[in-house]
Structures are given as C-alpha cells and as structure tokens.
C-alpha cells in the first residue's frame, strides 16, 4: 500500500461524499421544511442524468445537458409536488412512503418507456478530460476533481442561500414554525413547491455529474437514495450541516473501507479469503457505522431542534 494510492482513494471517497451531499441536502431540506419523507428523490436523480445524457447527445454539448438536467429535475419535482406530494403533507409517514414508492415505480417504468432498457452513455466534456498528477506520482482524473469542486461550490451556495437570502429566511422560518409564517402572509404553498423543486434540482445535478462516470440507466438512483438516507440519519434529519458531515463521513468510510479492509484482513487470513471477508465487511461498513452512531445518539450527530 502506497501513500499515493491511499490519497487517490481518499479523493474518490470525497467525490462520493460530495455527490451524496447533493442528494442528502435535498432530502433533508424537504423533510425539515415539509416533514415529508420522499423515496422518489432517487428518481429525480435519474431524471437529471437522463435529461443530461439525452440533451448532450442531441446538442453535442455536455454543458447544455447539465443545464437541461437542472431544468428537467426541477420541473419534474415541481409537477410531482403540485399533483401528488402536496396531498401528503398532512398524512402519516406510512402514506408518504407508499405514495412516493408508487412514484418510483412510475418514474422507473416511464423512463424505460421513453428511453428503452439500454443504458445511455454520457461523455466527459473535453474541458475536463485528462488527468492531473498527484503528489506521489499517480494520475487522477480531472473530472472527479471537478465534481468535488462543483459540490463544494453548491454547498457554499446553499449555505449562502439559506443563511443570507429572503428565501432562505423563509425556509428556516418554515422549519421552525410553519403555521406562524403562513399567518405572517408568506404563501406557504408556493414556498413548499420551490423547496421541493430546489431539492429536485440538486438531485438532478448530482445525477448528471455522476452520469458521466457511470452508465445512465433506470434504477441508478436507488442505491444513491439509500446511501443518502444513511447520510441524513447519521447527520440528523433536517440539518444541512449534518448532511454535509454525514455525506463526507459515509463517502470516505465506504471508499476507504473497500480499499483498506481486505488488506487489514490479509494480516490474519490467506489472501483469497481475506479479499472475500474484507469485501463483505466493507460493503456493510457504513451501516455498521450508522448503527454505532445511532446506538450512541439516536437522533443523529446534529439533531434539528424540532422534528
């Protein structure tokens, strides 16, 4: 094991964490403001990826595709909120889970209907192709660094939006007392639609960025959705800060676990077995971390004040 390889894995973990943050931020915002658990968030991620791949293939430009992914995911989010989600705010969590589970079925099958069963491919834009040399001599793809940077910019932007703007003030007010801000004359229904569309756009953006690394296919959102759930449970549901730290923790733990555990087990067991046990434990590692954190702090690391 070299330091360079470890550094590369650490960056991969950061990149995963940043993507998870984009997903988790939307989920946690929607839960914090509207008290809604949204399983269909992964579908919005998929919508973003498909929109980006389709538009990029049509126009030949990744950047137009990226904009399309934001627009498509936000629009899909707004439509879903207007038609379905707003009927669910007063329902219990079971109804919310079921209705959004139904939405997943519809989104997945609908996408398969539109685009067929074969995965689409999305090329990395020419500007971000190639690799840089890390200290230690390994090559690292520029695109992954760009994802980390984009995620950091979005995180800062989101922080500014929520802490410095009027919309952000309303979102925070909505989190602490939604009846009160309704009584103060804020159009709460529009605010909910905006928050939902914002969360959807973040998910769509993440989907588009990751789409260039993996194939764009139906069902791609589901593993990410579940990781994002782990993230917000660890971070404390409703807390953006918790989502950020949780996402980085999960991203780095998962990647480093897959890299290090087989090597650690190699001290005790023959290589083939060590790989097998290490791989199996590594795939469960973040859930074990989650269980430990919850055993100590049942409401996550940064529990939101209410909820």
């Amino acid at each position, binding site marked *: 094991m070299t330091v360079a390889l470890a550094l590369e894995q650490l960056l991969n973990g950061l990149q995963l964490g940043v993507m998870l943050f984009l997903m988790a931020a939307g989920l946690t915002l929607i839960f914090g403001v509207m008290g809604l658990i949204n399983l269909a968030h992964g579908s919005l991620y998929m919508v973003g990826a498909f929109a980006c791949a389709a538009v990029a293939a049509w126009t030949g430009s990744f950047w137009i595709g990226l904009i399309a992914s934001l627009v498509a995911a936000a629009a899909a989010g707004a439509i879903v909120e207007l038609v*379905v989600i707003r009927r669910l705010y007063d329902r219990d969590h079971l109804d919310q889970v079921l*209705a959004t589970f139904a939405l997943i079925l519809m989104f997945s*099958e609908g996408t398969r209907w539109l685009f067929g069963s074969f995965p689409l491919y999305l090329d990395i834009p020419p500007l971000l192709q190639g690799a840089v040399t890390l200290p230690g001599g390994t090559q690292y793809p520029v695109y992954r660094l760009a994802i980390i940077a984009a995620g950091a910019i979005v995180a800062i932007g989101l922080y500014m939006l929520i802490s410095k703007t009027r919309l952000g003030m309303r979102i925070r007010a909505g989190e602490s007392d939604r009846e009160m801000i309704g009584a103060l004359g804020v159009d709460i229904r529009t605010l909910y639609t905006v928050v939902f569309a914002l969360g959807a756009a973040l998910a769509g953006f993440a989907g588009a960025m990751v789409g260039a690394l993996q194939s764009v296919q139906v069902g791609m959102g589901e593993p990410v959705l579940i990781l994002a759930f782990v993230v917000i449970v660890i971070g404390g549901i409703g807390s953006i800060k918790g989502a950020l730290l949780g996402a980085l923790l999960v991203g780095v733990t998962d990647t480093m676990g897959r890299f290090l555990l087989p090597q650690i087990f190699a001290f005790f067991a023959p290589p083939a077995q060590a790989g097998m046990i290490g791989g199996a434990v590594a*795939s*469960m590692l973040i*859930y074990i971390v989650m269980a430990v954190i*919850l055993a100590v702090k*049942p409401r996550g690391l940064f529990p939101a004040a209410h909820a």
Partner: protein
Amino acid sequence: MNRENLVNFILAVLLLAVPFAANMAGQPFYVTLATRVAILALAATGLNLALGLGGLVSFGHAAFFGIGGYVAGILATHSFSGEPLLFGLSGTNQMWVIWIVAVLLAGLLGLAIGAISLRTSGVYFIMITLAFAQMVYYFAVSWPAYGGEDGLSILVRNQFPGVMTMRPLGFFLICYVVLLVGIGLFALIRASRFGNALQAARQNEVRVATVGIQPYRIRLTGFAISAMMTGLAGALFADLNRFVSPSMLSWHMSGELIVLIVLGGTGRLFGPLAGAALYVAFEYALGGITERWQFFLGLILLVVVLFARGGLLGLLAGKARHG
C-alpha cells in the same frame, strides 16, 4: 357473523377453491399463483404485527424474508452435496427443520435490528430498518460462497412427511395451512394482553409507560415475532421458486410487503391476504396486457393511497373498528 368475518371467510375459501379448480382443469400455473398469494400473505401478516398492531413502519422486512429464503437454500444445498455446514452439522431437506432454523434466525436478526432501530421512531425508524436490510442485502451480494449476486438454486424442493411437495397442489396445501396458522396466531396475539399493550403503545406511548409497561420491550418483542413470521414465509418462498437470490432481500421486497398490507387494509386480520391476492392478480392481469405493468401498478397504488384509504377490506367490509 359480521360483515368482516364473512368477507374473511369467503377470502379463505376462495384461496382454497381456486387451486383445486385449477388443478382439476389441468392448469397448474394457477396453483402456483395461489401458492404465491398464500406465501406473500404470510410474510405480510408477519409485517402486519409490527406495522398494523405496533405502528412500526418497518421498511426492512425483506431482510427477514430473505434470511428465511437463504436458510432454506443453504440447508438444502448442504443436504444435497453432503458437505457439513457448521460444527460438523449437516444440511437438511426436511421442511420442518428448515422452518425452525429460519424462524429462529429471523427472530435473532429481528432482535438485533429491532434493539437498535427501536431506540428511534418515526422517519428515523423507517430509514434505519431500510438501511439494515440493505446491509444484509449487500452482504449476500458480496459473499460468494452461496452464489453471491447470482443466487442459489434448490435442485429438488424440500420434503415434508406425507406430502408430495413437488406436486403444486401438495405444496400449496402446506403453504395454505401455514398461512392459516399464521393468521390464527395474529388473531391470538391481537386479542392477548401483549397484543393490547402493543396496540396501546402505538396509540399512546406515554400512557403505556405510565401504567408501568415499557413500550420498548413490548415493541421489541412484537418486532421479533413479526420478523419470525416473515422469515418463515421466506423459507416457503424459496421452496416455491426453488431459487433464492439477493432480490428477496432487496428494498423493493420490503416496499412490496408494505404495499400488500395497505392494499388489503392496515391492521386488519385478513388485510395481508386480501392485499396479496389483489397484488398478484394485478401483476398477472396487467402483466398480460402490457409490459409496462409496473407503471400502472404505481398509478393504482398512488390512487389507493391518496383517495381510497382502508384498502380492499375497507371497501368490502367497511371501516375497521378502532382496535
């Protein structure tokens, strides 16, 4: 006999009559469909203990369902190959042994998952049960000894004394009897002191604690029993398909189990059976019409959740009495 009992009785008789008629008409496929209904209904009845009585929305019951399936698969494989399993114990192809092991393991897993998950409530509980089920799922995928991602085939359906299990009708009858026992157990638990405490903990946790019952213990017990019943259904399901794979552990499976309960009617004695029958019928009927049946299933489910609360039994037998 009140209306709900009548509907329940008709459901139970129908589930028994359809396979016999199909068998006589030489259509064993419908026997298999009915077996599927019975097994899914059993799994959902297990979940209904936690969800319907205890109000514990577990989104991770696929873990127990899958564990049951893998117990059947692994024991049968070892019995077939003759390799010892653990500590020199051999595998088995006797269903009743498999059932006992499946129930015990699912119960233990239920205790472990429940002990941590029940410290939380609400959305946290939903997500944590989901995450634990995913943990088991990924373990099954990445553990190559029993097929990993490809799953594990059971070459010959396991044996039950006095029944030709390879005959569809014989196996159906086993599943049917087990389902009735499961539903009976649900009814007994619901009427028992323990069941009352479990329901009371759903309705008002503070009051339960005030009269000196610890809600946590009651819920944990309920959750473990629920896991056991779902695990047993998993063992039967593996035998039905003669195949077990990580898809039995996937979160879609957990979702489907919840869907069955809600389609049928949450907390109702025969809700899971009504839901499972409806679900399998949808799957079969829509699947015959269009390849895109999942889309329409989603649409129907959405309409049921938004507008037709109470499910099929709510429609047929009226509102549930508050229990």
